[in-house]
């Protein structure tokens, strides 16, 4: 059974691209339009990995990570930030919130798949 990844991004085009790349690599994908939507979907269905943007209306990526890490069943699930933000300060905040890695957009699908495989197989 394929592993499921929750892709959270307010950009519809980015979600499509992300979904296309991950599905082509054999993963199942659940899409969410912002942090709150991501949190709701993660509560409804246990996923194997979370990929989230940072700047989204309402709940942002860092707040989503903090909320997920408070949930027992998401304490060890890999969470990657996929964002246009590349500053060290933001990365440090991501790390402190519980992110496992930081990918700066635009992403290369081969590179993304490589990282995902490394984290969830």
């Amino acid at each position, binding site marked *: 059974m394929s592993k499921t990844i929750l892709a959270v*991004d307010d*950009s519809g*085009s*980015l979600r499509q*691209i992300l979904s*296309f*790349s991950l599905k082509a690599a054999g993963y199942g994908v659940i899409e969410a339009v912002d942090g709150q939507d991501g949190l709701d979907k993660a509560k409804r269905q246990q996923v194997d990995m979370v990929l989230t943007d*940072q*700047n989204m209306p309402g709940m942002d990526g860092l707040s989503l990570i903090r909320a997920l890490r408070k949930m027992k069943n998401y304490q060890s699930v890999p969470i990657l930030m996929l*964002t*246009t*933000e*590349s*500053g060290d300060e933001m*990365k440090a905040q*991501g*790390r402190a919130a519980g*992110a*496992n*890695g*930081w*990918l*700066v*957009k*635009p*992403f*290369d*699908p*081969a*590179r993304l798949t490589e*990282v995902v495989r*490394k*984290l969830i197989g």
Partner: protein
Amino acid sequence: MHSHETQISGLMNAQVVRLLSGVSVHGDQHLAEVEQDLVQMNMLLDEAIKKLYASFMAIHHAVELQQEALNDLQGGSMPVPEYAARFDALRGEINLHVGAAVTGLQFQDMTSQLIGRMAQHLAGLRGVFDALDSHDSTLPVSGDKALLEMLNHMSERVDARVSGLSGGVRSTVNQRHMESGDVELF
């Protein structure tokens, strides 16, 4: 009486200068940010279009080669294992170009963030113009204290908008090229 009018007139001149200066500084800040975002957006769009065009042409070429290989296969001019290797190589090549196209397609996400920031700056500029509105159909008589008060209120409103801008609208997009970004695992 004459000296009182002179005093009001002097204060009024000072208020007009303060008001114009506030509008100029605030307007300039907003427009400079918009200008900077437009330049960045232009670069990103330019690179994205070039990248997408190159990927599209490369995929087209690889598909043509695949078709040729299929025709050769039907003609049976080469042993089957060699065809398999040829198809594998072509598949790998197509995947590579699709990957480059996927990177290029992400321009929309970045440019929409820049457009959002520009919209915030334009709203700020609109705020300055709103602050200049006296909300009154008739202006007080020149030299009157009421006019001085009105100018004073306008300046205060413009100043409030300027201090509201301090720190600006932070840019979340620093990319100036459509090359894929860094990956860091913690």
